[in-house]
């Protein structure tokens, strides 16, 4: 077997580790992998161009930026903070745990587009989490502020990933079904999706605990 195409993976790992521009790393890896697999350079460029073109739908979501930017111009982030400041007993731990549960349950019902980084995390969740953390711990150091924002994004991802597979009509469930069917194991989407529930519960417990411990660590640093 020709193991040379794996060099592309090595380029990706090394390129990201050495902090070259990721676009440059990805395209270099694609060209090297294709050539080492025995394709000629023109064919690799064609494959790259076709795949980039076929995947344009991924970048369509950026058309939301003018809406978010315009609302921020009129104080959307300040509003999100004001709401949290107005709620007595609001903490970052409670806020993000509720968001985690909300994201998991809505994703499990197939409502995956209710959250997301440009739509909800940047304009709403992150400023709210920041306000809640400052409410209980006072002014945050820059480093802690970064952690709270990053934790907000992480909570969105984890809620999405470990909720969506409980919904039986999601793409990943259909992929699992298709693969097993092609090997002669017909499964129904529902048989698969119930087995996403134990992991979803573990995800809620583990990540919920980690949110709380970040909240507690911020408190200790502030004291």
């Amino acid at each position, binding site marked *: 077997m020709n193991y040379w195409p*794996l060099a592309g993976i090595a380029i990706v790992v090394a390129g990201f580790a050495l902090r070259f*521009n*990721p*676009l*440059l790393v990805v*395209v270099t890896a694609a060209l090297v*992998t294709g050539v080492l697999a025995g*394709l000629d350079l023109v064919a690799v*460029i064609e*494959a*790259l*161009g*076709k*795949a*980039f*073109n076929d*995947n*344009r739908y991924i970048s*369509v*979501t*950026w*058309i*939301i930026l*003018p*809406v*978010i*930017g*315009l*609302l*921020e*111009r009129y*104080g959307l982030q*300040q509003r999100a903070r*004001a*709401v949290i400041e107005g709620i007595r007993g609001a903490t970052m731990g409670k806020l993000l745990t509720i968001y985690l549960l909300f994201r998991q349950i809505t994703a499990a019902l197939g409502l995956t*587009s209710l*959250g997301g980084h440009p739509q909800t995390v940047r304009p*709403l969740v*992150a400023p709210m989490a920041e306000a809640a953390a400052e409410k209980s711990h006072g002014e945050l150091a820059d480093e802690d502020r*970064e*952690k709270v*924002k*990053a934790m907000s994004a*992480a909570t969105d*991802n*984890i809620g999405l990933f*470990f909720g969506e*597979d409980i919904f039986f009509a999601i793409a*990943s469930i259909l*992929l*699992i079904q298709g*693969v*097993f069917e092609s*090997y002669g194991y017909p*499964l129904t989407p529902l*048989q*698969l*999706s119930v*087995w996403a529930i134990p992991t979803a519960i*573990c995800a809620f417990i583990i990540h919920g605990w980690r949110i709380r411990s970040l909240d507690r660590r911020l408190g200790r640093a502030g004291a």
Partner: protein
Amino acid sequence: MITYEWLYILTGGFFLVWSLLSLRDAKWGNAAFWGLLAASFLFGSHLSDFANGVLVLALVGIAGLGLLKRSDPATTTLEERQAHSDRLGNRLFLPALIVPLTAVAGTLLYNYTPLSESGLLAERRETLILFSLGTLIALTSAMLWLRPPVLAAAEEGRRLLDSIGWAGILPQMLAALGAVFALAGVGDIIGGIAGAIIPDGSIFLTVVVFALGMALFTMIMGNAFAAFPVMAAAIGIPLLVEGYGGNPAVIGAVGMLAGFCGTLMTPMAANFNIVPAALLELKDQNAVIRQQVGTALPLWVCNVVIIYVGAFLLWS
């Protein structure tokens, strides 16, 4: 019928405006980058594969040379924003909620009523089409309500776009890399290696190698979807299901979730891990991943246990 082609024209128009505004701002690199992306959206369907490939190389060249800069169009000050926020109150949330609500309510309405038989929207494309529609409704209503200067929405969008920069097309570029990897047979090679290092006779260790393969290969590809068919074919089906008689539903469902743990730990899953770091203007590009590793690792262990218990101990 409304297809993705409509959305590409719309999106191409947005990027064209951003390119022209960058030109006016004398940000030549940005103007070229967003202009090329606009060309890809507007004309990509009519260009040859090679021309599209050259366009990709040009985009990467601009980004690789560091010609993409942050921009700072005129905007409101923090004090002005605070005053607007006090004056406008919670109504400010309404336009922001229009987008997800249109996408969600519209998808439900379209799929569970006779509307889907009308063939108005291209099949399985309805959510993104409705998301775009929601964006247009939200933008129009916000502009009618707030009456900002004519170019304000476009300029505020450009500020956000330039803060994201090249990371904005990284997810699309990674999908293209996945296609080249598939063409070069990388999946088969990995599957062969994983299949060859399995210890004989131990169900538990086989489960561990299967779940580890899912997580690691997902980290390489940035996507559990690419890893799943390979690992299922190399280990999941021949060894766990056929060799040891495990429950295929558990092995499939939880195997995929073990892959999702890998997604949380890789910069290759750019739209989940790198783009939000840029959007939130974090100094550390990997800050989101750092917060996720502590959840992903114990959760991966849970998945191994769930497969072992659910597919073997409870099944036999």
